[in-house]
């Protein structure tokens, strides 16, 4: 389906004389019971609207880029400035299944951008070794859903390398990138958001951008950071999110949450795709309930910016945290627990978590599963009326 979608989107810009979808629609028309768009076959529209940030002026000339292009740009900058940097993983040589590494092998050489065998524990283990030897290692895991074979290497090795060696050895030069989050049809194994598993691991940093500008700056920070970092890229935004992104390298600091809009009644916290849902929820709350929401993008899951979130909750007295990952043990529980410790007497209502259900990520039931704007809106209503 993804291939069909890509064909359709490309078709709108291409100069091909044959409309890409025409053969399919012709076949469908031949069947008496099919029209080209029956009610049951209509694909669901995205559950969010991407809102681009204003063009940044402080980093030099910008260029229109979508999310995967902003990643390519960050990687391009890195390979240009750091001769030790190497990028590797499954299928990265031809450009990657999400096109994040297009052009880099031709530009920088096959010893710097290369495929590995199909083995995530090997990819991360190899990456750790590259980093320990002093080179910059950027490992790609094809989908965050497949990161688990590498869990031992990440948790038992990468995260603990510096501590257990008394700072003689470390893998600060390691960055792991993986596509993350729901995509409309990804189902169990192409939609997961596993940040909570890694949030429980001291020594790691876990970072999730909401947009192309954020992605490039945060990825460059992860690469520069002297600790092993996991960088999750919201795959649904790879093409859908387009912004004017600076061409030159720049960094956005880690462990600093960003307040996207200020408000006085409720604090809304999320990361990645869900930020765009919450921004819309904030407008709905203002319009329909007269409620002023403060929207915070956490950005770094570990170590997370406790101060910014708590300061906001002290002001508003209400907190809603939202993520696609299942609610039990999801990262919202960590935020909720810490905030009630620090801001107990400031809370006007119980902290609300609007998250995925405790099920594997379903295929056809995705519209019911995801924490959409209506569920968030309803949760705000309950908090206001508590």
């Amino acid at each position: 389906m993804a291939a069909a979608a890509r064909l359709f989107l490309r078709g709108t810009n291409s100069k091909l004389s044959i409309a890409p979808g025409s053969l399919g629609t012709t076949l469908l028309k031949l069947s008496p019971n099919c029209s080209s768009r029956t009610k049951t076959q209509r694909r669901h529209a995205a559950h969010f609207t991407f809102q681009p940030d204003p063009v940044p002026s402080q980093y030099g000339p910008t260029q229109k880029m979508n999310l995967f292009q902003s990643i390519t740009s960050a990687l391009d900058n890195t390979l240009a400035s750091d001769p030790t940097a190497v990028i590797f993983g499954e299928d990265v040589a031809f450009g990657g299944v999400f096109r994040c590494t297009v052009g880099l092998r031709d530009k920088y050489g096959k010893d710097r951008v290369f495929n590995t065998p199909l083995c995530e524990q090997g990819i991360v283990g190899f990456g750790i070794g590259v980093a320990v030897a002093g080179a910059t290692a950027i490992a790609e895991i094809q989908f965050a859903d497949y990161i688990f074979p590498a869990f031992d290497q990440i948790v038992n090795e990468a995260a603990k390398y510096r501590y257990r060696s008394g700072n003689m050895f470390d893998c600060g030069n390691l960055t792991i990138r993986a596509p993350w989050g729901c995509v409309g049809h990804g189902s169990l194994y192409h939609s997961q958001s596993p940040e909570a598993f890694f949030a429980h691991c001291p020594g790691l940093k876990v970072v999730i951008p909401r947009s192309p500008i954020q992605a490039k700056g945060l990825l460059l920070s992860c690469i520069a950071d002297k600790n092993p970092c996991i960088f999750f890229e919201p795959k649904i935004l790879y093409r859908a999110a387009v912004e004017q992104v600076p061409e030159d390298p720049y960094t956005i600091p880690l462990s600093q949450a960003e307040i996207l809009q200020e408000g006085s009644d409720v604090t809304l916290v999320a990361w990645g795709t869900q930020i765009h849902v919450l921004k819309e929820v904030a407008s709905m709350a203002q319009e329909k309930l007269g409620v002023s929401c403060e929207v915070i993008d956490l950005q770094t899951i570990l170590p997370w910016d406790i101060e910014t979130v708590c300061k906001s909750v002290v002001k508003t007295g209400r907190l809603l945290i939202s993520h696609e990952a299942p609610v039990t043990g999801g990262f919202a529980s960590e935020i909720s627990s810490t905030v009630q410790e620090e801001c107990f007497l400031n809370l006007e209502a119980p902290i609300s978590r609007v998250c995925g259900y405790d099920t594997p990520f379903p295929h056809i039931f995705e519209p019911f599963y995801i924490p959409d704007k209506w569920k968030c809106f309803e949760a705000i209503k309950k908090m206001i009326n508590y």
Partner: protein
Amino acid sequence: MAAVSSMSKMYGLCFRAVRQTAGLKAYRLLQRRGFRVTVLQLQQTFDSSLEKPQFPGASAEFVDQLEFIQPNVISGIPVYRVMDRQGNIINPSQDPQLSKETVLNFYQKMTMLNTMDRILYESQRQGRISFYMTNYGEEGTHIGSAAALDPNDLVFGQYREAGVLMYRGFPLDHFMAQCYANADDLGKGRQMPVHYGSKDLNFVTISSPLATQIPQAAGAAYAVKRENTNRAVICYFGEGAASEGDAHAGFNFSATLECPLIFFCRNNGYAISTPTNEQYRGDGIAARGPGYGMLSIRVDGNDVFAVYNATKEARRRAVAENQPFLIEAMTYRIGHHSTSDDSSAYRSVDEVNYWDKQDHPISRLRHYMTARGWWSEDDERSWRKQSRKTVMEAFERAERRLKPNPELLFTDVYQEMIPSLNKQRESLWRHVQQYKEHYPLDLYEK
């Protein structure tokens, strides 16, 4: 020889390299420095008129007889050795002819290790340290391989390679400090005993999870290759750890990515209580190498010269040709797995005694030395006394030393201190101030 040639038919070109004869010119032509162009990378033109398989996945001939390849475990890959069990050189051309000074050094390092092992094992039994693992019987694998490397070569180990560190000059005080987790420990007291590491000696700190170092060694070798400084990487592991998925990953990556790396497997017969016939069904670890496209050899691990020769040649070629080598060193774990193990529960005393008395790396080397008049009974007596004294002195120093400052509980989690951890640190200190009589502060540095 028949076994070798039939196996070579199975594995084709790769296996022939196991024999270290000179008549392999055709294969040598394929080797050159830098990034080899492997046959499979070039897209051949497809010609279906040829009766040759055109598959991208394998280059081979067609065959019209249904026949399963028989794994050969009865007479598998032969064991290369230089000395017999009495320390006599079998084939003089294989004697590395090392100097008296070098050989004496080998002997002294092996015996010093043995002495340190005895004393530290005993110290655990007396409750002075929490845990220990001895190296009895495997000293030859450590010293032979370490001597064949360059001091700048990076070493990834498992946990039974203390002799490699000792050979490189790691002081007894540092061994002891790590085992005692005292304030002199380079690892800052964070890990269990025998988890040594040394940045200066290029020995990556040991970690408990098995085989995790194997793909890491491949990555380090790749980075080292790009540096172009003629360094190699060596990766030690046991035959048990070779069953881990990480081992498969490391072998495959090092071969496909053309890394200057030596895989050194210590096959000592047991993974704790699990004997080799419960660990694998094939012909040990060496037989797996060709499956990955890797040059492989099996050596007598209790013959320090065989280990030395194999490692030296593997290192030379790994760096010159940018490809990994697999050395399976057959040996025997004379000691228990660790101080938490009593191996009489799963093996006979007779078996252990055989290896201790009849095929020990230290005895074999001593016979070699005495045969040349390089070592006498008096030398042995005075060296034993001296090495024991040295070890005991280091031991007593380590005993007296305080433990590291508990502040070090909180540092090095990240390169920098993070606010949340700092808060936790402060809360511990407040707590300890209040309840100080319940915490063993006197044992730690302030």
